[in-house]
């Protein structure tokens, strides 16, 4: 009896709810911690990023104006789907990074729990940061936080799943759409997460995921005039000044974070809107 040959996965990009290959036709080799070949993920190009921005922009209005309850349930649904594929992610992470299965399991479980944590924020962040303002006049005046729009995320090199979830979850919690660039050296868990997202009722275009080189793509994220915000938590320190300078072209909101669970990560990519309404008969 012959040994069964594995059916291996082709890793592609995740743009507008579909899994296209990079238009550039480029790939790069990813090896495991023992130096053994695992996959040829896409080396995404500037054009792929542009396509992702178009998809993210188109998805923004619908996602932002979905009810907070609905967004919360969809984030929770991502957690449910990830829970169901726990073993797959544990195996992928330990194979890719060489950590013990126990450590990989901790990371997957923390990622699931983090999604649940952010799911609960969708209908509470306004109460935390909103206000009614007692202006000196006959006006009802209130301030509410609103999603910013399209946000880019440069994922950290390490913590390929948890660091990735910690970036995308707070961005989409408030109604933003996201284009995430997965860890260059460990992109595969992020691309597998795309399969989870694709089956979680997340509308197409809300989450878009690219694989590639951050030194090549981060400047295009920064200078793209239709990206409103950028989470550079995973960006190399030496590139930060250049990225901030390029982002000044459209006054992008650029932030990086140390904590994975913080309402500040949600609020950083929201805008306060103040509405005045006269009171009278």
């Amino acid at each position, binding site marked *: 009896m012959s040994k069964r040959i594995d059916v291996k996965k082709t890793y592609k990009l995740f743009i507008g709810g579909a899994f296209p290959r990079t238009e550039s036709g480029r790939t790069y080799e990813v090896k495991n911690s023992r130096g053994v070949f695992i996959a040829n993920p896409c080396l995404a190009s500037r054009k792929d990023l542009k396509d992702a921005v178009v998809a993210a922009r188109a998805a923004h209005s619908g996602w932002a104006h979905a009810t907070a309850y609905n967004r919360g349930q969809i984030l929770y649904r991502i957690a449910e789907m990830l829970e169901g594929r726990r073993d797959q992610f544990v195996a992928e992470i330990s194979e890719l990074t060489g950590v013990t299965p126990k450590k990989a399991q901790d990371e997957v479980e923390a990622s699931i729990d983090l999604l649940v944590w952010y799911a609960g924020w969708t209908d509470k962040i306004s109460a935390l940061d909103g206000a009614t303002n007692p202006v000196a006049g006959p006006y009802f005046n209130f301030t509410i936080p609103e999603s910013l729009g399209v946000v880019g995320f440069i994922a950290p090199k390490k913590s390929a799943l948890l660091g990735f979830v910690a970036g995308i979850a707070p961005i989409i919690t408030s109604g933003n759409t996201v284009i995430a660039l997965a860890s260059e050296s460990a992109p595969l868990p992020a691309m597998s997460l795309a399969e989870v997202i694709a089956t979680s009722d997340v509308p197409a275009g809300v989450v878009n995921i690219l694989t590639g080189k951050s030194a090549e793509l981060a400047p295009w994220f920064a200078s793209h005039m239709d990206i409103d915000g950028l989470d550079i938590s995973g960006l190399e320190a030496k590139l930060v000044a250049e990225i901030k300078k390029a982002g000044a*072209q459209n006054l992008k909101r650029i932030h990086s974070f140390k904590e994975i669970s913080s309402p*500040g990560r949600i609020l950083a990519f929201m805008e*306060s*809107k*103040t509405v*005045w309404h006269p009171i009278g008969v």
Partner: protein
Amino acid sequence: MTFEYAPAPESRASVSIKPKYGHYIGGKFVAGEKHFPTINPATEEVLSSVALGGKKDVDAAVKSAKKALDVHWSKLSGRERGKYLFRIARILQERAREFAVLESLDNGKPIRESRDVDVPLAAAHFFYHAGWADKLEFAGVGTKAKPHGVVGQIIPWNFPLLMLAWKVAPALATGNTVVLKPAETTPLTALLFAEVCEQAGLPAGVVNIVTGDGSTGALIVNHPGINKIAFTGSTEVGKIIAESVASTSKSVTLELGGKAANLVFEDAAIDESVEGIVNGIFFNQGHVCCAGSRLIIQESISDEFIKKLQKRMEKIRVGDPLDKNTDLGAINSRAQLEKIKELSLAGDSEGAERWSPQCSLPDKGFWFAPTIFTGVTQSHRIAREEIFGPVLSVLTFRTPQEGIDKANNTPFGLSAGVWSEKGSKTLWASQKLKAGVIWTNTFNKFDPTSPFGGYKESGWGREGGRHGLTAYLKGVTHE
């Protein structure tokens, strides 16, 4: 029969202007090296000569602010800090007429506005923030929140004293010390504010005022001793500031330009809306970052509305800013007048139709008649660029969604107005409009409790309310 208004000028007697001013550094006026004139834009009369701040002056001001921070200000309790701000608020109220007259002289704005809007709101900003000084732990900023240190503040010429108050009050309430640069063309009320600091007994160096032009501003922005920048002005300069601090750890807030839509639906109360549109674009000569400079009106009522608007514009009184009956004062500077003229000519040449009421403008000074352009399309420069003058561009829409799309078709996002008698429609439009401040059935209202600031290229951060306060603190919990 027509009734003419008799002149009703406010007296200049309350104001005494020195022939020459230095910088206010470390609690005293220090002589500057070079000087430049500041004029009354309504008459071109030279009011005084003010110092052009250079590197030495900015260094001295930053050093003085740092010393005041370390030696005195950071050691004071919030309660005591707050008392200084309460004192400043009270002195501004006491000297309100003097400030209003001086503001109208140096800026060209009608006394009715400086007296009823600028100065009372400036006092209100100090009073509001005074009360925060000893309550910061309850401001939702956590217990680790700390002042940035020395704050560099650069303010514009359209609301000189009010913008000073928007900047200085929250900075001091949160325990920062300040290096402030008033605008090149309107330094006098800031210099008079130095006297208020003296009268309030504010410790030397807590507020330092360096006058000058853009080069002085750049020295402040790039000074290594400055921990935070707060800037109000053009988007163009805002972007330069954002680039200059990219490689530093300086915190920045920017309040920049706008091209606000005033969206009038067919079910709006027409007469009220006409008043709102007039207030939206002609308040302060249209020198307002949040001015309602694009009227976007539903096609079904457009013709009738424009007729009523023109009739109302014929009643706008243009002239002497110190006259209590004046509605529209002088354009702040020759350079600004040239910019307004240039963009208006672009409106003509791109095919929009210009209309202004018959009105006689004074011979001397800088003046521009209230103007509307109809037949404006979204690609016209006068629909895209900030004119910062009394010029309104009129566009039309058919469906509510088209109105929203046109309103949002701009890189700016500071403010917007919505006019409709239907509550659900005004809230729907408020939700869809991408702007930081939405006025429904009103316009150009400001309050210290109400956060102000823009989406997109209109800036970073908010001023006013709890949201504005957090911009002056680092280590805020939700950051």
